[in-house]
């Protein structure tokens, strides 16, 4: 693998700002076997949900999330149910693994030095790393949604979609709503990626950065469930994540989604700048 990484980094052209730097970084992220295995796990969840619901005679119980009970009505809900389930740990973990690896992984393998020999500014290096993380976040979310959609439509069929408000929208509009929800969650996870990128610049152990990022997301979820600190909730990264359900109402309730996007953008900006502040002045020893 290090050979592949070396050849990939060697392919970075000198001086000329071109998309090839990003392309090589993406190739690196999306071709790593461990990342592919992670994506396969993410894709397995909707398949598992769909088969479990199809094969069990009884409907999902009264305590199941609302999306689960609608799966038998419309296959599109498999995507939403899978996204709801994976939002807790799987999707943040996948993004944390990539983001934690971004700088610390290179440092750990000793390839960061070679990267820095290439005459690109450290800011641009970080920007390319972060763009790759953002794209991965979207790939992961849409992979879950698309796999859920395909298996759901195959097992339960499509047709009009019943929104949370109890009214029906056409299949194409439903498809659009699911795509919107996935895009929103992609943005949410991309902001977690910025946190991961920052932590990744603090250490040379990629696994430590990944764990710290997951802890950050889990701690945010835990704080969000403690009513005594509700003054803190609007500022938490994960607080607005479930607002993707607001996209499934008629008419769409935008306020939660807009707040969620603002918080995501704020976290992304602050932590990307913090990553730059740390990385630009960092002594790279290996």
């Amino acid at each position, binding site marked *: 693998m290090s050979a592949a990484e070396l050849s990939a980094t060697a392919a970075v052209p000198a001086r000329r700002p071109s998309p090839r730097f990003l392309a090589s970084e993406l190739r690196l992220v999306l071709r790593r076997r461990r990342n592919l295995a992670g994506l396969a796990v993410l894709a397995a969840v909707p398949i598992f949900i769909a088969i479990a619901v199809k094969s069990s005679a009884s409907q999902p119980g009264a305590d199941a999330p*609302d*999306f689960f009970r609608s799966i038998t*009505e419309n296959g599109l809900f498999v995507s939403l149910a899978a996204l709801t389930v994976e939002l807790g740990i799987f999707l943040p973990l996948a993004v944390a693994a990539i983001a934690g690896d971004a700088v610390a992984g290179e440092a750990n393998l000793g390839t960061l030095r070679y990267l820095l020999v290439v005459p690109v500014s450290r800011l641009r290096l970080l920007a390319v790393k972060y763009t790759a993380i953002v794209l991965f976040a979207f790939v992961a979310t849409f992979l879950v949604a698309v796999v859920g959609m395909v298996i759901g439509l195959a097992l339960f069929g499509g047709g009009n979609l019943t929104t949370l*408000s*109890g009214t029906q929208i056409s299949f194409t509009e439903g498809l659009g709503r699911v795509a919107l929800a996935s895009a929103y969650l992609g943005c949410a996870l991309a902001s977690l990626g910025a946190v991961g990128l920052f932590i990744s610049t603090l250490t040379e152990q990629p696994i430590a950065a990944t764990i710290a990022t997951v802890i950050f997301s889990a701690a945010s979820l835990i704080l969000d469930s403690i009513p005594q600190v509700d003054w803190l909730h609007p*500022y938490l990264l994960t607080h607005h994540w479930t607002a993707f*359900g*607001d996209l499934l109402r008629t008419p769409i309730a935008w306020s939660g989604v807009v707040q969620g996007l603002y918080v995501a953008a704020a976290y992304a900006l602050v932590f990307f700048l913090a990553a*730059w*502040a740390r990385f630009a002045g960092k002594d790279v020893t290996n």
Partner: protein
Amino acid sequence: MSLLNRRPGLRWLVPLLAVIVVTTAGSVIAAVTASARDSLPPRSAAQLLVDVQKARLDDGLSGTIVQSASLGLPSLPGPEGDQSSSFSSLVSGSHTLRVWYAGPSRVRVALLGQLGESDLVRNGSDVWIWSSHNNTAHHLTIPAGSDRADPSGMSAEQAMTPQQAADAALKAITPTTRVTTDPTAEVAGRSAYQLVLEPQDPGTLIGHVTIAIDGETHIPTRVQVFGRGTTAPAFETGFTSFNASTPPSSVFDFNPPPGATVTEGLGGTGGPADGHTLAETAGATGGTPQVIGKGWTTIVKADLPANTSNGDNSGPFGNLTTITKSLPTVSGSWGSGHLLRGTLFSVLVTDRGQVVAGAVAPEQLYSALEAP
């Protein structure tokens, strides 16, 4: 850049600056728009009450209402706390409602839960109550002509002019309450008047009540109830967004989705059974409640129906008994019982099956029990 190379620590100022910008951006925008708004001319309490009575929503409205309550109630058993989309969860925590209004016969209220929703839709003579969590739609039909009762009722009310009604209302509360107005309030980004009701009686737990009245439409847009000596409201319900224009008629369309359980009429799911037990309960409540004191420190004393004191959990008071048992025990010369010490009111259920309640401190409940 050379400065940053010499002093790398300075780079940290950039993310720090970003934190300050993103956290204050919201309040700066709010402050700028607030100063850009025209200030409202001062109006007296009587004038405001007249305005409210004359307020007519010709165009209808749509908006979002956020309600939050920290009344000091024990958390209810079951999934009925925060973020629940069940209408019965409204007594505690924070909730978001969306409302659409296009005249009295076209109304929709949606309670937004986390990944769930309950709706109440009235479109003409049809009323639908939808719950996404239970996947149920309940249908009621309002008999034609029942709306005509409204104008006649209105005309009887209008025998008293709004001015007279406002004066009468103010006269009724002034001995116990200081009423002031404040034209500088802001609700849902709109200028609003605020009517402040301050109890004169120091015995009550209620510090003051504020009612915000929209400066343009004169519709009450927010109610806040403050405990004595607190700066955060114990109960608050108000618009966070407010749009005084006719909502599209499509929001009032409701057809039960396929797969949903549809019930009809006033009965429906457990309806008749509830009515039955409620009638029974009404018969079982021994005697009429006794009212002690007046004004803000009024205390209500009543006897509980017999079946709740012997621990029968099957009735509508079944949950109540469980909750009562979990409350702290208090005792005194009046006997002993369980006390609910809320932020705005206290409720005491004695072991003898009496219940006393009021917007007062527990000590006053004790003395009310001691009094014959």
